[in-house]
């Protein structure tokens, strides 16, 4: 693992490609794969488990990537096939005018300065090959027409840069034609996977998810243990022990959340928040079950190929059908919600075995989810709060000065902006927004999404997260913000490292952790600490005793 430079060193960033590099031209600037930026290669057993091509040990730092002999043929055939299948790709390959509006919108370019991380150039990596193979001008005029041969070096460049994109779609927002680099990256990665070029941090979770139902490879008994453990912790704090059910047939609602919530802090506290909420609602008529088979909301298949995304996503509907649930409630997660909102029904629907979601507590019918039959938990909770169904003590979160990070996918692939804010405003007293160019639809990525949340690429992650951290620091200095709230498991996994690096005074929470802290359970004991075991406001003294 490469040594991570200090923040002061990392912050020396040059955004002007030098004249020298300009004279050489980006097409002729060979790729240099750097440790700290590149990820480890996918392991053969991960690929084998799900039947993906060319499983083998290989190392991106090596000269030889052990590709099949006809790799070029496979890629070009794959590209042709995808041009025929995706209008998005076909149009995006043709219409970019290189106006450069996207150039300084990418968090990786802002934090790193590598010109090939300008979204326009990332797409040109693929576009140049498209021109060479599929346009007359490109075939005849070559580089003059912006076309170039797909060589081994170009292929390596693809791999290096398609795994430096988090598919956050911020560039797409600013593009006058809506050209979506996420679409280019998704399809680019799909092509690379045809010849076994992947990264371990995507391939292993995919294999795990396929086998055990979740990315972390948590087996059913261990999953149940983790939930039991949370219930114990909740009992310690509140005096009440929730009694969640797992894999229970006949439950009205199936709950699915990213497995990160049951495995890694601070996501675990968010999971406790869900448990407290569900326990609270039980007496009001909530009939909900968790599942160990569909124990993953996230979908790393989406970072592999459309097909793999569909294969992993299939579990959600299958499990809901097996259990006889009426609809599905989904936890806080980013790309999970892009997949659910924009893909799931198309992938694996129609879910005729389910019913249009109706909140059993408020009677609200979620018309916006009438076909997919899956509701986001902040939509569900916001509706509860609006209908005065929750007794909340905001002051329990008074130690927190909160800002909210819009996760890329719910923001730009769904439009979930107000629901989480409404919940936050109702569970805490101190909430401040980051500057407007960095939130809502213009939100900046955590820098670790789309399968980049590994350890070996820490420099890349710290660079990619810089714009977000910069905005957090702004509100930290201006308003004393000490807590970064989010609705994404990758955020919760990535931000602690990022904050620690750039803004160490700020901690990270899920929205439902704060709900869990504020919610007043019937018959609970006087709470002295929050779910993290830290003293509540005014309880610091007693804690010392």
């Amino acid at each position, binding site marked *: 693992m490469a040594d991570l430079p200090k923040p002061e060193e990392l912050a020396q960033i040059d955004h002007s490609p030098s004249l020298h590099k300009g004279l050489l031209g980006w097409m002729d600037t060979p790729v240099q794969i750097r440790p700290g930026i590149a990820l480890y290669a996918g392991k053969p057993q991960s690929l084998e488990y799900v039947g993906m091509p060319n499983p083998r040990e290989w190392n991106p730092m090596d000269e030889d990537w052990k590709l099949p002999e006809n790799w070029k043929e496979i890629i070009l055939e794959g590209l042709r096939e995808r041009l025929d299948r995706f209008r998005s790709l076909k149009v995006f390959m043709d219409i970019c005018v290189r106006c450069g509006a996207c150039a300084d919108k990418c968090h990786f370019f802002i934090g790193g300065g590598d010109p090939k991380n300008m979204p326009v150039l990332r797409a040109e990596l693929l576009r140049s090959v498209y021109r060479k193979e599929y*346009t007359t001008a490109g075939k005849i005029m070559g580089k003059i027409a912006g076309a170039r041969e797909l060589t081994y070096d170009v292929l390596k460049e693809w791999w290096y840069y398609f795994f430096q994109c988090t598919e956050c779609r911020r560039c797409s927002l600013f593009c006058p034609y809506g050209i979506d680099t996420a679409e280019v990256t998704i399809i680019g990665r799909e092509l690379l996977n045809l010849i076994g070029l992947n990264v371990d941090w995507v391939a292993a979770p995919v294999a795990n998810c396929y086998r055990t139902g979740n990315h972390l490879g948590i087996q059913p008994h261990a999953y149940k243990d983790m939930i039991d453990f949370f219930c114990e912790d909740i009992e310690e704090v509140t005096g009440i022990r929730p009694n969640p059910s797992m894999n229970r047939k006949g439950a009205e609602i199936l709950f699915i959340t990213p497995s990160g919530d049951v495995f890694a802090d601070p996501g675990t506290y968010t999971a406790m928040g869900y448990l407290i909420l569900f326990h609270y609602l039980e007496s009001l008529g909530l009939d909900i079950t968790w599942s160990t088979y569909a124990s993953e909301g996230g979908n790393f298949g989406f970072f592999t190929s459309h097909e793999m995304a569909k294969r992993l996503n299939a579990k959600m509907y299958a499990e809901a059908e097996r259990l006889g649930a009426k609809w599905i409630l989904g936890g806080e997660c980013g790309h999970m919600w892009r997949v659910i909102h924009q893909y799931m029904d198309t992938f694996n629907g129609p879910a005729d075995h389910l019913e249009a979601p109706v909140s059993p507590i408020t009677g609200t019918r979620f018309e916006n989810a009438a076909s997919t039959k899956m509701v986001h938990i902040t939509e569900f909770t916001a509706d509860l709060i609006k209908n005065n169904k929750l007794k909340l003590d905001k002051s329990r979160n008074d130690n927190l000065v909160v800002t909210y990070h819009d996760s890329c996918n719910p923001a730009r692939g769904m439009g979930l902006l107000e629901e989480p804010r409404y919940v936050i405003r109702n569970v805490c007293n101190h909430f401040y927004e980051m500057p407007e160019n960095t939130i809502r639809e213009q939100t900046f990525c955590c820098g670790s999404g789309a399968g980049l949340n590994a350890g070996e690429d820490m420099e890349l992650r710290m660079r990619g997260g810089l714009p977000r951290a910069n905005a957090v620091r702004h509100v930290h200095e201006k308003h004393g913000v000490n807590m970064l709230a989010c609705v994404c498991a990758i955020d919760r996994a990535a931000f602690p490292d990022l904050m620690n690096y750039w803004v160490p005074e700020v901690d990270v929470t899920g929205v439902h952790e704060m709900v869990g802290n504020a919610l007043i359970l019937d018959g609970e004991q006087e709470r002295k600490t929050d779910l993290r075991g830290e003293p509540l406001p005014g309880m610091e003294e007693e804690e010392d005793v």
Partner: protein
Amino acid sequence: MNFVVSIVFSGAVVTLLVLIPLVGVWAFDLRVLFGIVIPYAAVATFFVGLVAKVVGWGRSPVPFRIPTTAGQQWSLPWIKANRIDNPKGNGGVVLRMVFEVLLFRSLFRNTRMEFRNGPRITYEFEKWLWLFALLFHYAFLVIIIRHLRFFTEPVPFFVTVLEKLDGLMQIGIAPFTGFQLPGLFLSGLALLAAVGFLFLRRLISSQMRHISLPGDYFPLFLIGAIGFTGILMRYLLKVDIVAAKELTMGLVSFQPTIPGNVGVLFYIHLFLVSVLFFYFPFSKLVHLGGVFLSPTRNLSNNSRAVRHVNPWSYPVKTHTYDEYEEEFRDKMVEAGLPVEKAPEQPEGEASEEETGEKE
């Protein structure tokens, strides 16, 4: 591409394109070729090429509903949804596309990243690209409409009105009026100014220099040359406008004629325009059609409410619950989790496989 090579190459090609009709008409008197054959071929190429392009795009389906949402979704009735930037239905999509196509709404969002040491990053006001892009396209549109004068008889009233408006600003101000020069059209100057801005932007900004291809400089130079020759013809080296119209009316009525007295400058102008028409379908200029077909803009964000169908969807292999329970049944039973099938007999030591847990 190296930007010096790109610029020199594009400049050289445009120079050559000026010389070809100059030599062709002057030295070889190829008026039929440059006045009739090439313009017809160019227009035919343009239409056939553009239609083929759009049909080609249209042939590829839109398997998934992937709008880029730029505002609040429609969810709970008491949360105000953004009907334009996050359209729920087709009405919103139409509005979104109207704003996009006519006002370049996405480009209007543009900001400029300022990076200072610390680091401190801010996002500053940057509407110049939007402004000049808008100026460029609308100036072009006005010029095209004004040119309808050459293809209609009588000239429709809107063309005359537009000409008046276009010339309005200059009446009485232009120092040339005394020299019996026609009133200056704003659109021509605006076009050249915008072309100048768009070129300088590519040249001055190191990022732009880095990403620009010959295919970015060439159309700018070509359009600049078209505008320049047009202005030259109108104000300085005047051509016989009556003869010119005779030629253009001949073209549009499919009774082509070559009047003897149109100046060579006219042929140069016409040839450059023809080249633009030829070039159009094979270049980035097809964004004219593509902008309407971009799935991140022209789809409503209702994929949870209404099912979107993927025409090439195919069945995939999944890991079923039965396979899952088969592997973990004993552990599930031991943990008190319900199972579909009771375990047959104790299997002794189940293999405890490494799961490769990630943090």
